[in-house]
């Protein structure tokens, strides 16, 4: 394992110290318990948006703390969901009196820990609601599974709800908006290489020179199946077709299209993927109203990509265009 770290135990703390030093103008970092909060929080009468999850997905979530997006983010250890005390303290720290909305990716651990935090907050008479993301079409949803994983849609969810919260939308309406975004966004990802969790010290799986993993999550886990290596255009089809047919996205609809890198994939390759994804959307008569191309929800240094499509009406588009000022996503200000 070769990494730019000092020791596996200190990765998250030292990263947080670096974020404080680099972005202290916008965020305030707590080291006990770990969380990153907006420097200007709490803002009176605004619903507080709090997310969190294992580390190793940077810039998500900490890089999305700031005006027009999250009020706080709770980083767990690498690929391990954070603990209720983090979510509790972070939520209290940024509570502006209008309640708290937790944005939670659908993993057993994340869900149970955020539930415990919500219970603790309610005991303090703080109103709490939560929105789930479970957009990964690679996982079949059924009563007999943990349900679909929350992946790329989480980034769009945090941007869009952040913009709505900034406009002082109330908790119930935010929760409803989040649920409708959850219902109309779909994603799928693939990997060319595994990644190495620092404290594990070895790759999360082995992959041959002519193999790739299709239907991966964001925790270095293997995908739904292992398939032979293919050209970028074919890979893009293997991701786009299941995404488009799952909802399904219909002819004439508009979408926000998000082509994401898994951490070790250079931007030049993401544009080659975006090129084909846009051609496929066009072929299906789906209009790309807005797009995002880059590595925003990652699995450490894993090489690979994921694609997310979200149905976008004019309201969603105006929320997308609204000003955002975070370390990782910024425009309009």
């Amino acid at each position, binding site marked *: 394992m070769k990494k730019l770290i000092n020791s596996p135990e200190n990765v998250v703390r030292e990263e947080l110290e670096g974020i404080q030093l680099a972005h202290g103008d916008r965020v305030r970092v707590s080291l006990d318990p770990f969380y990153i909060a907006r420097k200007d929080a709490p803002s009176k009468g605004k619903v507080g948006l709090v997310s969190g999850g294992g580390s190793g997905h940077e810039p998500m979530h900490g890089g999305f703390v700031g005006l027009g997006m999250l009020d706080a983010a709770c980083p767990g*250890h690498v690929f391990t969901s*954070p603990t209720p005390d983090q979510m509790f303290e972070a939520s209290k720290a940024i509570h502006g009196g209008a309640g708290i909305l937790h944005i939670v990716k659908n993993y057993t651990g994340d869900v149970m820990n955020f539930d415990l935090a919500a219970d603790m907050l309610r005991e303090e008479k703080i109103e709490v609601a939560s929105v789930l993301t479970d957009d990964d079409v690679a996982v079949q949803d059924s009563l007999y599974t*943990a349900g679909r994983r929350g992946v790329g849609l989480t980034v769009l969810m945090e941007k869009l709800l952040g913009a709505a919260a900034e406009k002082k939308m109330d908790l119930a309406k935010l929760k409803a908006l989040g649920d409708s975004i959850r219902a109309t966004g779909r994603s799928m990802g693939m990997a060319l290489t595994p990644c190495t969790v620092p404290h594990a010290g070895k790759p999360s799986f082995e992959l041959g020179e002519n193999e790739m993993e299709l239907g991966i999550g964001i*925790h270095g886990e293997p995908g*739904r199946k292992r398939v032979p290596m293919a050209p970028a255009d074919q890979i893009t089809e293997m991701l786009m077709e299941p995404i488009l047919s799952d909802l399904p996205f219909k002819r004439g609809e508009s979408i926000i299209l998000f082509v994401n890198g898994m951490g070790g994939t250079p931007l030049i390759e993401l544009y080659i993927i975006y090129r084909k994804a846009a051609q496929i959307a066009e072929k299906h008569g789906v209009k790309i109203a807005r797009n995002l191309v880059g590595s925003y929800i990652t699995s450490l240094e894993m090489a690979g990509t994921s694609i997310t499509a979200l149905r976008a009406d004019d309201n969603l588009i105006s929320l997308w265009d609204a000003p955002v000022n975070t370390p990782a996503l910024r425009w309009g200000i």
Partner: protein
Amino acid sequence: MELLSLEQLRLWIFTTAAAIEQNANALSDLDAAIGDGDHGANMSRGFTAVTKKLEAAPSTDVGAMFKTVGMTLISTVGGAAGPLYGGFFLELGKQTAGKQELDAATLSSILAAGLADIKRRGKAEVGDKTMVDALTPAVDAMQLAGNDITAATRAAATTARDAAEKTSPLLARKGRASYLGERSIGHQDPGATSSALLLEALAEVSAK
């Protein structure tokens, strides 16, 4: 043996911590195969913190001690195992508030209550390829074993280890492993394995 004292129950926790520490890499390897490879690290981080806490402030009764264990696990383990094991020990704490010692019947009934809390939280049933698969038969075996704690806990430990190994052929229906579908078959469940370590430690302590 008829009774387990507060001191012996603390020793159970320390023995568990040592066992987790020893098997941390093995647990993480199991988790890497069908999960995200952190179960060993999560558990050892948690039980290291628990050990510190208990050594710093010796608890006055069994209930208080279990509560400390549960709270500490919840705030240090994270992932799925944190709330599950944390809730398990919180439940043990509720059931033993004020007690200085436990007999076999109480011990098996509180473990049953702890298991019930895990099932309530995680909504897993036997056969879903989780820690529930190891704990359920173990608790049953203990209830049948009668009043000798040494024998009862040994029965529970042996049953748990076998049951953990039997999770290997199962198709996971809960937790991360369920994302793998068919690919989850043929790997032993890490949480069931850590549960077996927990009960093995209890049997060891009860044998002394």
